[in-house]
């Protein structure tokens, strides 16, 4: 537990708050760009922004882990979770689309 909770210098507070916000914002941008491109509300090349957002998310998570002084094992788990999040919008959209197609004329 001592490793888990090291003191954080107060000059790191602001970067922690900003990067924490960035984690959530990039997460939403990835899912948002992915969805609107799939729905053809914008041109297909906007998908690049989706994956750039995901890359920014991974970088943010890594940096947040550094700032919070998490142990190396947790750092690996965090990056692994990012690959899970890479799949997440694909999975949600796939299920939504399948259900929509199946029940297109049911209402």
């Amino acid at each position: 537990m001592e490793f888990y909770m090291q003191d954080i210098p107060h000059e790191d507070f602001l970067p922690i708050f900003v990067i924490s916000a960035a984690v959530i914002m990039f997460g939403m941008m990835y899912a948002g760009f992915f969805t609107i491109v799939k729905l053809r509300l914008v041109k297909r090349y906007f998908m690049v922004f989706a994956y750039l957002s995901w890359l920014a998310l991974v970088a943010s998570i890594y940096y947040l882990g550094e700032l919070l002084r998490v142990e190396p094992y947790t750092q690996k788990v965090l990056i692994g979770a990012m690959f899970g999040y890479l799949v997440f919008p694909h999975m949600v959209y796939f299920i939504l689309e399948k259900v929509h197609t199946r029940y297109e004329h049911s209402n």
Partner: protein
Amino acid sequence: MQGSRLYEGQKLALKYFFVAVVLFGAQLLFGLLAAIQFLYPDFLFGVLDFSINRIVHINALVVWLLYAMIGAVYWLLPDEAGIEVVGVKLANLAFYILTAAVAVVVLVYLFIQVGPGKESTIWFITEGREYIEAPRWADIGIVAVVLVFLYNVYATVMKGKHTGILVVLMADLIALAGLYLAGMFYTDNIAIDQFWWWWVVHLWVEATWEVYVAAVGGYILIKTLNANRKVVEMWLWIEVAMMFGSGILGLGHHYFWIGTPEYWWEIGALFSALEPVPLVGLFVHVLYDWGKERGKGNTIKNVPAFAWLTVETFGNFLGAGVWGFMHTLPQINLYTHGTQWPAAHGHLAFFGAYVAIMISAIYLGIQGKAGLKELKMTKAGWWAITLITVGVLLMTVALTISAYVQTMVERGMYGATWEGFFVAQADVWFTQGMGWRLFSGLMVIAGYGFLVYDLLTCDKKQPAEVYEEEAAAATA
């Protein structure tokens, strides 16, 4: 559908909505008084202290949201089940008993205020637990009223149609009501007391209320966008799984510093980090439904309701997701808890996750009461949504600035000392943040004025074609 053609359950829903809007006003008024007292501590000192204003501000929020939630269920229940609410007379009686009890409790808060440290105070004045301060006699009354409500819901669904939205609501309402019991017993050990108290507060707002919102949000999507019911209901089940999956053990982030074992740090950190994921999913879902229906050229059937639902989606994400995650992980929460960080997060999260969607549900009621095929946004409606939303966002930013000062000065530089507390409170950035919070509170109150005006008049200010469509439908 004219008012006389509404189900009795829907007429009851309108009564719940009416009281909810009145209590919303009370919440804002007492919040304003408390905000003034942050800047001018002598204001109403000894008459209506900050502690009392805060109690009324917070409890009015919880109670008006519960009124609106119950109202929304009574609104959608007969519509979804296809039959009148079973036991609607009993439900009406319960409404009047609950409203009388709420009035008595508020009067006691305002005029009796505090009592001696005896059992009688817990029974007749206040239990002293944040958010659920109601005295025990009122607790028991609330349980009785909720049992009537559950009976209405279960008996109606059993007799009528079993839609996915109703089945999710049935399961969720049992959990929501059952959790209230965890806040009804008292222990002398404050750590144990807080342990159970969080079961009510956290497992309401970050689990059962979120699932409730997903179900009612699904109903609103069907009504406003004509969204595909199967897609809505399928998504609802996924969301229930995700919200309960992350939300239940997300409870851990409230157990960091109250005397519970240290393993809660890791549990709280992991599940708190997962909590924004369903919010991203909800965002994708609303975007998906809007995109699909927009492609078909469908018009929005109730613009104010859909606008508030959109505010809900983004507000929930920003307030609960972004502002929650910024200060929740235990390493940083060590320095942020007990400052204005939770206040900044709480204001935007409650507004985004619950206030916005309840206003959306109330607009559905207004449309149904007036019997309009469509409800367009009026100027007053736009002023209301703009002033309230911008006001709450500004309030959140102002509170965040004050919170940052507290974190840096009180916690970081002075090491959470008594001296550090007062140095931070006197810091010019802290007081300026509080000043902007007061200003933004006035904006919200102005928006509330527009909202009340719009709710009372918007059905009479609709374009002619909306009435014509209704007339045509009535003669068809």
